């Protein structure tokens, strides 16, 4: 259980960089007036970021993942979060086993 000074410095650098990204959005909106157009742009951020995060998994990773994303999306229209996520995990596990990916 030792801490190397160089490793600690690297951890601090990563922490500072991460904190900077998380604070700067808050600073940004303090200095920009939010009109209707800025509002709509901000409202587009959550779906746009979520879509970007899952797009490679959904579209170009493999047929098992694409199938599981569709199954999860369909399940989400009827089931609560945990059940829909469980559906996705089961479907991806079965599909990978069947397809052999």
């Amino acid at each position, binding site marked *: 259980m*030792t801490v190397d000074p160089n490793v600690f410095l690297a951890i601090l650098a990563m922490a500072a960089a991460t904190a900077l990204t998380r604070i700067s*959005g*808050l600073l940004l909106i303090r200095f920009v007036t939010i009109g209707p157009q800025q509002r709509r742009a901000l409202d587009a951020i959550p779906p746009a970021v979520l879509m*970007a995060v*899952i797009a490679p998994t959904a579209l170009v990773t493999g047929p098992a993942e694409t199938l599981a994303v569709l199954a999860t999306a369909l399940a989400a229209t009827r089931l609560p979060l945990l059940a*829909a996520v469980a559906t996705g995990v089961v479907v*991806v596990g079965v599909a990978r086993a069947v397809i052999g990916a």
Partner: protein
Amino acid sequence: MRSFDGTALQVRFKCGVTGVNKKDVIREFSGGVRAMAPLIVAVMPIGLVFGAVAASKGLSSLEVMLMSAFVFAGGSQFVAMDIWSHPVSWGALGFSALLVNIRHVLMSASIGTKMPAFSGSAKYAAMLLLADEIWAMAETRAAQARLSAAWYAGLAVPFYVVWVLTSLAGAVAGAFLGDPKAIGLDFAFPAVFVVLLMGFWKGRETGAVLAASAAAAVMTQQLLPGVWYIGAGAAAGVIATLVLDRRREVCA
């Protein structure tokens, strides 16, 4: 439609401080914990794997725990393990964390406008814990009700504690752990994001945002290494909204 007029915020802020009693705080906090419970379970295997990978790169258990506690951003921590070298280069690691986490600028700008109930310092404290999963659940809450600081704490604090402790456990247990991919657990987080995304659907305009974001993300991911694709997709989605806006103005 909520008002973001300055005086309205001032009034709500003052009422929020005087009108809060202990019971409300506890109820809001436990509401946040309940909403977060599935993600707290889902992050456990990820934390274990991170700890095991980090230990295999030569980090001590204490160093692993410190990284999870100070950085608290899973994506950039995994990328750091990819580029870990001996001796470590703090400049390269800091810069890569900056690039991997640049999406947090957009996320913090977006959720920052939905925190009129937070005091100034609570807002900054909340931002330091703005991991993807916490942000997504906070946005989901803000779309349905007023997001309180206690609800946010309920989302963030247990998730943070579990992330730090499971990384430590993973570092200690090391190679005894199996591959989470074998049972499909690596799919838990993409699945969570799919479910949350469905909640943001508001008709055809959302469809345009999603199509632009998905196309830009996939193309960027094929061309550039790292996580540039998230920033590219987010930017494309926002630009799609602005283009639709412009067209509406022209037609009007």
